[in-house]
């Protein structure tokens, strides 16, 4: 299950006690780390990943065993639920203790990775993984800081609309464009409404699912370089950001969302945004490549709904961005600064043709290694590959791209926009203020 849930842990400890106690959480795990720290020739490395269920977990166990058989290096595998993993990673970093930080771990790239690099926690892989990097160079941009690559992306997916083919048909929408214009998209909304179907669900209670609308509007209105330059200079005055906000407001203005969407959670339970789509209560949801997996976990029979289809975020007439550009993101393997060389070998091994093909065959994500992209078993997921590899750039989820501090302020303000309490300018102002505070 890749990146199955991005929502913060449902239950967090209140108050300042949590800030302190979290430092202790990571202490018990990763026995391998203690032996490997400061020792370049250690024969045991620790690896944290989030495929903690079923086939994916079994596959990664096998991968670790294969690596041990080939090289004699023992891999101490820790499979964790995604949110737990993020919390533990943060705690391990906070402790600053090499023994607690895993040797190979998942990174989401962007501003988050940059902050880790700043703190000297991540190993530069540019030279040691040169072969692997050249193989997946289309995807390494978001994992590069100052021209050095600090993580190897192994799954890059896209955000787009997952829709219920049956409900679309029932509403009389016969041909669904794989990349509709905004007029076509609004046509879908109208037809669905006429058929008394709620067109969209959105988990605005978790904020980021709502924020994806704004991010994608930015990808449509702002050329990739403009966004990157804005992040670089912490100057978001380019009018394309305002235009993006206007597009988002236009979609919100259609009132296409499920009732109570302002407090709807993203993925937890049958009344969450994903649950509403999985149980046929709404016709569409804007979500990433994880959606089939999430939806499968929310249906009664535990199967991925057969009615799921996918199309890209609509394009706008006269838009400033390249229509081939997409918004998405993925997961990459980082190696910690104190890890032995064997950890780099293992990270490279994870990106090898063989491991990536097995990864694709089990539909664990959208592989980056070109030899593996054809191995995806799930047809709906396979649909995303030509769009992703269609020549455009994939912009990272902007909250990850901007880092948690600015990203959090941005998501808060976009959530207000969905409640009708903030406009396009307010979102830009919130980002600008947070970015300046970071300088």
């Amino acid at each position: 299950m890749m990146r199955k849930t991005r929502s913060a842990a449902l239950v967090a400890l209140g108050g300042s006690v949590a800030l302190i106690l979290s430092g202790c959480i990571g202490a018990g795990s990763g026995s391998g780390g203690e032996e490997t720290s400061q020792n370049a020739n250690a024969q045991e490395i620790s690896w944290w990943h989030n495929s903690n269920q079923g086939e994916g977990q079994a596959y990664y166990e096998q991968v670790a065993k294969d690596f041990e058989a080939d090289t004699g290096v023992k891999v101490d595998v820790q499979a964790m639920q995604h949110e737990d993993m993020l919390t533990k990673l943060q705690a391990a970093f906070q402790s600053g203790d090499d023994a607690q930080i895993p040797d190979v771990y998942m990174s989401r790239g962007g501003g988050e990775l940059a902050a880790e690099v700043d703190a000297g926690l991540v190993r530069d892989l540019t030279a040691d993984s040169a072969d692997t990097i050249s193989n997946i160079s289309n995807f390494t941009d978001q994992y590069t800081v100052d021209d050095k690559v600090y993580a190897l992306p192994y799954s890059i997916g896209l955000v787009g609309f997952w829709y219920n083919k049956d409900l679309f048909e029932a509403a009389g929408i016969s041909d669904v464009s794989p990349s509709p214009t905004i007029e076509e998209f609004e046509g879908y909304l109208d037809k669905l409404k006429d058929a008394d179907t709620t067109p969209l669900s959105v988990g605005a209670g978790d904020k980021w699912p709502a924020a994806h609308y704004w991010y994608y509007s930015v990808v449509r209105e702002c050329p990739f370089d403009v966004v990157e330059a804005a992040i670089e200079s912490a100057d978001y005055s380019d009018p394309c950001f305002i235009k993006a906000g206007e597009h988002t407001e236009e979609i919100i203005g259609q009132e296409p969302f499920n009732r109570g969407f302002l407090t709807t959670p993203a993925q937890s339970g049958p009344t969450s945004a994903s649950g509403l789509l999985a149980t046929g209560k709404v016709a569409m949801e804007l979500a990433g490549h994880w959606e089939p997996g999430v939806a499968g976990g929310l249906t009664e029979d535990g199967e991925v709904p057969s009615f799921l289809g996918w199309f890209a975020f609509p394009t706008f007439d006269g838009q400033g961005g390249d229509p081939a550009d997409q918004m998405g993101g993925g997961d990459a393997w980082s190696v910690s600064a104190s890890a032995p060389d064997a950890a780099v070998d293992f990270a490279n091994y994870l990106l090898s043709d063989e491991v990536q093909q097995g990864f694709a065959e089990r539909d664990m994500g959208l592989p980056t290694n070109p030899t593996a992209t054809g191995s995806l078993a799930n047809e709906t997921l396979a649909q995303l590959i030509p769009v992703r590899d269609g020549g455009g750039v994939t912009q990272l989820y902007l909250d990850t791209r901007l880092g948690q501090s600015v990203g959090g302020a941005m998501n808060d303000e976009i959530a207000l926009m969905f409640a009708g309490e903030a406009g396009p300018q307010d979102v830009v102002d919130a980002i600008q203020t947070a970015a300046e505070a970071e300088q």
Partner: protein
Amino acid sequence: MTAPARGGRGRVSSAWRKRLEIAFFVTPALALFALFVVWPIVTAVQLSVFRWKGFGPLTDFVGLRNYVTVLGDDVFVDSVVHNLIIVGGSIALQLPLGLALALLLNRRMWGQGLLRTIIFVPYVLAEVIAGVVWFQLLQPEYGVLDGLLGAVGLQAPEQGWLGDPDLALLTVLVVLTWKYLGLAVILFLAGLQGVPEELYEAAQLDGASWWQTQRKISVPLLGPTMRTWAFLSMIGSLQLFDMVWILTGGGPANSTTTMATYLINQGTRSQNFGIAGAASVILFVIALVMAVLYQQLVLSRDTRPDVVTVRRSRKKVTR
């Protein structure tokens, strides 16, 4: 342990022994208090004057800037207001309801024990579980409450009880009342046991009605219990987190944020640990000031030696 003087099981050693006994029984509690209360407070104060992302050394000293940011943030100011609304609203709703139920349940009647249990069950339920159950009940369109309203021809709010910024805080308050009413009732019932039976008998002989008896005897003698309960309720309301986090997460449109949800949002979610630290210090000060004022102005009359003493359980004020 120092060896007692030979044959000296007399005055000197007994004084020492007493001290050792005190030390023996108090030290573990003090150590835990220092580790889990004092140390976090000290660290929170330390964090509050730095800008810190959650890893690496504390180097970016910003003085009091985090405090300025927090106090100038509308979201935080609103969350303080929400906390105060919940403090006032909880007391305004639960005091009369709890009192009425306690007085009713204090009468001898059929099924008394069962009714008392039913009233108390919500308080025993874990707050998270109660929150999840209510979240599902309150779902727009598919929730039980909307279903019931629809069945009798009433229109539920369009965005649901939790999705409408104008209704969300009130809804949270109602759920909190459901959850904590049991505590008020149990405390009041306990307080009623302390009212001497002779007073009721005397009132009966004087021909007082049930209503007069309650008004002139039960309620005034419950005063100390009510004041203690209100204190507990106030502190709980200031620290409110779990229920809000599960029902609304602070939304919609920040209409139900509390100081604690603000902390989490800034701290673990946005990696602004300095700002979260400053907010936690402000929360601590607000809670401390309100607690001390309440002790001095309201509770002090109960602690004077000539008044009937009431068993008081003090909840910790700090976090």
